[in-house]
């Protein structure tokens, strides 16, 4: 991983600065960059006997490239979780966006005979076959976030609820419309990458929840989860809709750009709702420039690691009567507003 | 013009023992050259003798490994083109060094633009360019026109204007007449005379001995990278002596004797009423197996276009082309090639050859299917065949793996001919077959063309040199302004008659 080589690189780039430009100073982002990784705190959770050290288990972890704040948080919280247990030996594969590379990573885990595999697939369908292979080899696979296309591919599945996210956002929107008594509201949506199933699920949930209160989306654009695309699409959207009552943006990472576009245009008439739950979003909620954000937990992989340990050690979830770990866990997508923002700010991630 | 007066002139350039080596080649091996102010100094030598390298040294484009250059009595190093230009040495290259996308005026002042503080003075540039062109007798060339759209002769004029745009004391002209017709050559000579009268020196390179006699003062002969003779009077030296010096052999500049005109053999190529809008009209002729037909005419009279239309590279607007009784689809090179027509184009380097590819690939490129099995090339067979042909045509240097770019003009032309030989052509169209080919190699090319004909190939030759057409062809067609104005056996017509025909009416 990048940790050990981080400082040498800083040194190299520091030299480059000195040579190239006197003015720039250095590229350092310290001081607080180290602290921000482990957003998911395990400390507050109930401690059970399950946390007592058991047989040492080897867990293989593979996720997509962390080219996005939320994904970076997924990876770092998983690593942090594994750190907490002396009986976990974590094998981490370099994050990739290439399904074929991820397949070969899983093949390596199988060859290494790890005790369990935690997999956040770049593409659920593409990784299904190799996951079945792992299961057939007797290695339990814990599927995180993007679901496989076969029920035989995973021992346990832990998912954020993309559809539920849309529903939460839509329901909250309905509530606002009702409370403020807005007649014929203009509702706009800034989606993420349209080709991804998760974006389609979120949009569908939003649409369905709005339908329940008799509303529809008036303007919709799709950005690319990047700040720049968020700004660009929002700028165009603001022109297309001179007045907006409700604006739901799927993703708080691109939300930085959306927010910039709003500020730029001096538009603050709408109820601005975010998605995912970045620390920026939490700050905006505190200072009132954002109404709410819908959590999409970045701690799923960390939970996946925990489940993998329990499964490999033949333990169950101690809070359940059932002796085995459940097959499928769908995380809630709660709405964070000014009222409850402090409860959730520990779980936020840096974009 | 008194020769003595010129001898008194200042010694402008004094090169001694110039050596330049490239990987594997010693291009210059001790060249001496003296040039006086106000003279036309001719540089003679076969292709590969080192003329091009020498002028590149003079232009600052190559740095010599050894030797000294004195310029107006002072030893200098010409480290880059700028250094040469700054001293007043301008060069007109044979490979025209113009930028096709820039206008005439922009090309003339390229590298020394008229500007103030980096900003161009455009109207001044145009006016100056116009003046220069007028001085060259070509005021009709629009200075805003893109150079790429000018014909070769026009580009030549632009190159000249560019050389004159510098404050020049010495102009090097590498085959300046190659792209010009006879009228334009005379204009060029007048410009040269005007220049020398002002004390400018000219180094003149040409393969045409008659031009050297007409314009030259002194001659220096190069052979194999060395100066073999210098200070020869241009008018007084016998042709035989010059050729002997250049080739090291006693050689006659000869045309092969054609067999008795083959009037009984089969007609292979029949062109009937061929026309191309704005280029030429109603061209009809027949070529029998074993016959060579020559097309004479001025540059731009439509000769090349006729060949290209027969070949299908241009789509005829009227008329037909028939090979062995079969009519060809108009505008289809594929149909022409399938019927057995081969074309050796005028612009050999840009149209005919894959310059950076090996000799053997250039020879086999049109007969690839012969060497392929299921799409895979049998390169051994390819090379062997090519080698056999190259040897029979005496392509030098030997070895078919060397890139064609490294061959001299004559040898490149042999490669083109070898390509069509390999294909067993029925009809061979040759456009300026000896352009850029030196005197020694010309006879070989002529003999080669004749031997192709005796094998039964129907040959059509286009050439700007009337002597070449008359010497080589059995039958001659004279083209003027897109019309055939004369057709008849070569022996019934002489050079004067041809010139009369091509000029006729032009004075009106």
């Amino acid at each position, binding site marked *: 991983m*990048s940790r050990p080589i*981080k400082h040498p*690189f800083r040194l190299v*780039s520091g030299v480059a600065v000195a040579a190239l*430009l006197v*003015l*720039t*100073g250095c*590229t*350092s*982002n310290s*001081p607080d960059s180290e602290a921000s990784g482990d957003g998911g705190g395990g400390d507050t959770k109930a401690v059970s006997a399950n946390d007592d050290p058991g047989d040492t288990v080897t867990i293989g972890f593979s996720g997509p490239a962390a*080219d*996005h704040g939320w994904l*970076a948080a997924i990876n770092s919280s998983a690593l942090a979780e594994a750190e907490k247990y002396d009986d976990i030996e974590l094998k981490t594969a370099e994050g990739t966006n290439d399904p074929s590379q991820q397949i070969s990573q899983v093949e390596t885990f199988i060859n290494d005979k790890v005790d369990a595999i935690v997999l956040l697939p770049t593409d659920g369908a593409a990784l299904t076959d190799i996951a079945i292979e792992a299961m057939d080899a007797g290695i339990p696979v814990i599927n995180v976030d993007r679901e496989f296309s076969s029920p035989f591919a995973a021992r346990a599945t832990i998912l954020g609820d993309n559809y539920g996210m849309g529903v939460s956002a839509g329901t909250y929107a309905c509530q606002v419309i009702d409370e403020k008594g807005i007649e014929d509201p203009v509702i706009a949506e800034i989606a993420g990458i349209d080709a991804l199933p998760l974006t389609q699920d979120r949009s569908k949930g939003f649409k369905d929840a709005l339908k329940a209160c008799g509303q529809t989306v008036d303007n919709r654009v*799709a950005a690319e989860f*990047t*700040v720049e695309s*968020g*700004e660009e*699409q929002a*700028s165009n959207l603001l*022109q*297309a809709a*001179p007045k907006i009552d409700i604006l739901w943006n799927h993703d708080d990472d691109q939300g*930085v*750009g959306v927010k910039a576009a709003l500020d*730029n245009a001096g538009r603050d008439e709408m109820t601005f709702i975010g998605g995912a739950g970045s620390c920026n979003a939490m700050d905006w909620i505190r200072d009132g420039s954002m109404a709410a954000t819908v959590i999409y937990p970045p701690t799923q992989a960390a939970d996946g690691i925990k489940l993998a340990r329990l499964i490999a050690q033949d333990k169950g979830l101690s809070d359940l009567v059932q002796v085995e770990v459940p097959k499928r866990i769908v995380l809630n997508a709660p709405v964070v507003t000014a009222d409850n923002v402090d409860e959730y700010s520990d779980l936020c991630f*840096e974009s | 013009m008194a020769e003595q007066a010129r001898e008194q002139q200042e010694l402008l350039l004094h090169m001694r023992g110039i050596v330049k080596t490239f990987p594997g080649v010693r291009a210059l091996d001790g060249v001496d050259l003296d040039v006086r102010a106000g003279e036309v100094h001719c540089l003679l030598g076969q292709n590969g003798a080192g003329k091009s390298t020498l002028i590149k040294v003079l232009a600052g484009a190559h740095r010599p490994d050894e030797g000294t250059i004195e310029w107006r009595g002072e030893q200098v190093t010409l480290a*880059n083109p*700028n250094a040469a230009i700054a001293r007043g040495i301008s060069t007109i*290259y044979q490979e025209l*060094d*113009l*930028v*096709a*996308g*820039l206008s005439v005026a922009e090309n003339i002042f*390229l*590298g020394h*633009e008229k*500007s103030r503080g980096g*900003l*161009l003075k455009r109207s001044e540039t145009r006016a100056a360019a116009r003046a220069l062109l007028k001085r060259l007798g070509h005021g*009709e060339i629009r200075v805003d026109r893109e150079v790429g759209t*000018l*014909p070769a002769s026009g580009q030549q004029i632009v190159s000249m204007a560019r050389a004159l745009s510098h404050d020049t004391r010495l102009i090097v002209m590498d085959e300046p007449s190659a792209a010009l*017709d006879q009228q334009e050559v*005379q*204009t060029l000579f*007048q410009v040269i005379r005007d220049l020398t009268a002002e004390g400018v020196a000219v180094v003149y390179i040409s393969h045409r001995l008659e031009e050297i006699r007409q314009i030259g003062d002194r001659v220096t002969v190069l052979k194999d990278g060395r100066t073999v003779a210098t200070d020869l009077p241009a008018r007084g030296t016998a042709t035989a002596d010059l050729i002997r010096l250049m080739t090291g052999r006693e050689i006659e500049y000869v045309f092969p004797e054609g067999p008795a005109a083959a009037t009984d053999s089969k007609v292979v190529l029949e062109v009937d009423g061929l026309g191309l809008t*704005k280029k*030429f009209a109603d061209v009809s002729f027949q070529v029998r197996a074993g016959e060579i037909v020559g097309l004479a005419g*001025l540059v*731009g009279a439509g000769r090349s*276009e006729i060949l290209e239309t027969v070949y299908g590279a241009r789509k005829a607007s009227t008329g037909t082309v028939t090979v062995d009784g079969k009519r060809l689809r108009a505008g289809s090179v594929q149909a022409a090639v399938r019927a057995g027509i081969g074309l050796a184009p005028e612009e050999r380097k840009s149209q005919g050859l894959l310059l950076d590819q090996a000799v053997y690939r250039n020879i086999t490129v049109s007969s690839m299917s012969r060497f392929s099995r299921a799409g895979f090339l049998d390169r051994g067979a390819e090379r062997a065949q090519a080698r056999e042909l190259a040897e029979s045509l005496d392509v030098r240097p030997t070895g078919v793996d060397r890139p064609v770019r490294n061959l001299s003009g004559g040898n490149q032309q042999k490669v083109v001919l070898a390509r069509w030989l390999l294909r067993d052509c029925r009809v061979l169209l040759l456009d300026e077959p000896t352009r850029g080919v030196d005197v020694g190699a010309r006879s070989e090319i002529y003999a080669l063309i004749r031997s192709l004909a005796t094998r039964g190939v129907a040959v059509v030759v286009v050439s700007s040199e009337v002597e070449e057409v008359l010497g080589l062809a059995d039958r001659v067609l004279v083209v003027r*302004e*897109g019309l055939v104005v004369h057709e008849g056996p070569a022996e019934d017509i002489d050079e004067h008659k041809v010139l009369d025909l091509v000029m006729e009416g032009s*004075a*009106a």
Partner: protein
Amino acid sequence: MTQERTAPAHEGAEPPAQAPLAGSGTPQGSGLAQQVLGSSVGRNLGLVVALLILCGVGIWTAGEQFASVDNALTILRLASVIGVVSVGMTFVITGGGIDLSVGAIVALSSVWSTTLATQTMAEDYHWSVIVLAALAVGTGCGLVNGLLVSYGKVVPFIATLAMLASARGLAEIISERRTQIVHVTDFTKFFRADVIGIPVLVIIFALVAVVGWVVLNRTTFGRRTFAVGGNPEAARLAGIDVRRHTVALYAIVGLCCGIAAVMLVARTTTGSSTHGTLYELDAIAAVVIGGTLLSGGRGTIVGTVLGVLIFTTLQNVFVQNDLSSSVQAVAKGLIIVAAVLLQQRLAARSNTGSS
């Protein structure tokens, strides 16, 4: 000799002898229409028509919402960042090269100029520190490209492909893949302001385009750029230092990337390694539909600016009509092909005469 000089033979023989070979282009064949079509204005005509059609579609489908001053400024503001990059790209392509690394350089410049260290310095001294940092990084990357291409003799495609990979990688390392938010309020205030109703970003774009046009068309540097791109050997023999010129061209595009990075940082209030994604393709597309020859030797800043505006307007029209980005991508492809085909027709017409 004299008789040939004095005889009208030459003067008279010349035009008819040359005419067939010279094709049209000779003075007698050129009407006004042809001159217009042959000029750069003519070449851009197709683009102006395309842009007007797009605007017409926009007005027709979205009415006042599209035709408002606000919307026009939004389109210009969105065009400004990629526009600046495309102006730089025009120089490199005209000079016979290509730069695939523009997007990555924008990302690296944006990240480098918004690190905590740079921002702290900017707060201590002046916000222009951020600007200088971005410009220096951009120009530096461009210099490296240029040196590799001209002195290292690496093919431009490969040299800049390497820069594409490594600059974005370095941006990720420096930013630790985080989005770096700008806290220097003076900086954002300056660049997000308006001057007599026109956003500063648009003014910067206009300045870059005007300066680019002047440099390319009215200076010796520009003239030599055409020569270097059209025929490098001829340029060298004319006494132009082709290698140094090439380095300068890549430095210019690097500088433009630095400027674009500053604008992007101001627009989004962030620096990020994801900034400038696929800028290389957008810029090349704009430059090529603008009429610049991909093989070098011919280039037009006006065409490039029109090309950028066409793409940006297209995007705006699609959002106004609530159409998906996939439809937009298809339309973009069609426009590229249509524009290039149209240009070829116009060029062919101006070459073959007014008939």
